[in-house]
């Protein structure tokens, strides 16, 4: 976190500590640069992307929070990057160029939450059928579905 701030203070919007876990809130336009820095910088080396998950804060704004769970295999350290997105344009840059594993993670988040990842090689539904309407994991989508 300190290293990221020292490298580019603008890329750290907020830092949240909860139960020993560090969350760094990154502005949307800085995500790709910050992620690349965290992954490649030899003293950080977060080479493993564990998970991408989205929180829907409906009806609050900014509505979506995309969480990137990073892991450094050689230093045994975890960090969470968080990007806040508005409900009207949930678009964020894809991180597949940094971590190829993000491919399916991002497809899942697109499918279930409707987050669009710019620059993703093949952004299509992964769990739901292609012709499905809506994004089931969103809070305004009823648990029993539309009938």
């Amino acid at each position, binding site marked *: 976190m300190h290293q990221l701030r020292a490298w580019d203070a603008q890329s750290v919007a907020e830092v949240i500590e909860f139960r020993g*876990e560090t969350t760094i809130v990154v502005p949307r336009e800085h995500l790709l640069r910050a992620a690349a820095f965290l992954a490649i910088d030899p003293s950080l080396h977060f080479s493993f992307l564990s998970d991408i998950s989205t929180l829907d804060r409906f009806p609050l704004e900014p509505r979506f929070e995309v*969480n990137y769970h990073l892991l450094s295999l050689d230093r*045994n350290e975890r960090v*969470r990057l968080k990007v806040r997105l508005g409900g009207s344009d949930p678009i964020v840059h894809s991180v597949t160029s940094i971590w190829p*594993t993000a491919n399916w993670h991002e497809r899942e988040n697109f499918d279930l939450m409707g987050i669009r990842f710019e620059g993703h090689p093949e952004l299509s539904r992964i769990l739901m059928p292609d012709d499905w309407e809506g994004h089931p994991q969103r809070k305004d989508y009823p648990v029993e579905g539309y009938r």
Partner: protein
Amino acid sequence: MTATIETVTGAANTMVLNMGPQHPSTHGVLRVVLELNGEIVVKARPVIGYLHTGIEKNMESKTYSQALTMTDRIDYLAPLSNNLCYCLAVEKILGLEIPKRAQYIRVLLTELTRIASHLVWVGTHAIDLGAMSVFLYTFREREEIMKIFEYVSGQRMMTSYFRIGGIALEPPPNWLDRVRRVIDALPGHIDEYEDLLTNNRIWLGRTKGVGIISAEDAIAMGASGPMLRGSGVAYDIRKAFPYSSYDEFDFKIQTQTAGDCFARYQVRVAEIRESIKIVRQAIEKIPAEGPIKAVAPGIVAPSREEMKASIEGLIYHFKIFTEGFAPPPGEVYQAIESPRGELGFFVASDGSSHPYRVKVRAPSFINLQTLPKLCEGRLIADVVACIGTTDIVLGEVDR
């Protein structure tokens, strides 16, 4: 999930073959769209979603305790690992400390789960590649472990035995003797499987040099568990981020450097032996008596006697089972080493009695992503070996 089966490369001499979702070697409802040039796989595209049941969505509409039962159904070959990971995540939000006795019992049972899951894997992988008899033997031993689960929790598979704050009930008397009996017989049985497979020329021909993934690729693709260790990365969450007192147990991370199907087979067989070691240590460590639940009124349900005898017990019992409990708002990510790799639960609380969001980092889902890398450029028969070696459980892939 996508319905189209067009050629991806568009080359004139290729054809598309649809494998699954109803195919015995896909271990469930996995579908792989293969583009073939003769017998060579040019492109493989896994198509998933046939078993999507919306478990994560469902968990949001249940209380924290009710949502626990959903976790059994995610990875039905290792239900206790899922129970454990979810419990640890919620306990992390709550800041609960679990009694040592419960922690050791959790370790013992999750290691038995790992053994059972790896036994299923050895058996089904062998039957996929034509070695029928191993399957029958491994399921015989797995059944013994299932009987232990039934003896302890009352259920063979969907145990829900670990609860938030501890474990559900006091294990029956003499259960450790039964565990010891099963564990003592296991090493001999594993020698039998190895006799049948490890030096078997057909087995070697089907697995050696097949489905190679380098350490760099495995990390980049997010592969974890035996997929990662088979490529020479000595990474195990039980060592890297010890949970549930794993730091008090003596075991080694099993690795192989070849990165092929055979290396992953060796890793998994060696892991069964390591798990036996951990179970033995746990049997010694578990105290005969002691609390199995954390002291947390309002979160951990009181015992039957307490509920009947004291007014506080009655009130807490009523409140827990009608409205549940409300952890403080916040988000945690808890990862454990499941038989398949890094199993993670991201749990977000908004301060109400229902989880605001539960996201499962399913190891099978991510490991399956490596499938095209494993089998492209190889024969179609190797696809079966490659699917088997990723050790997927479709319930977990699709959730």
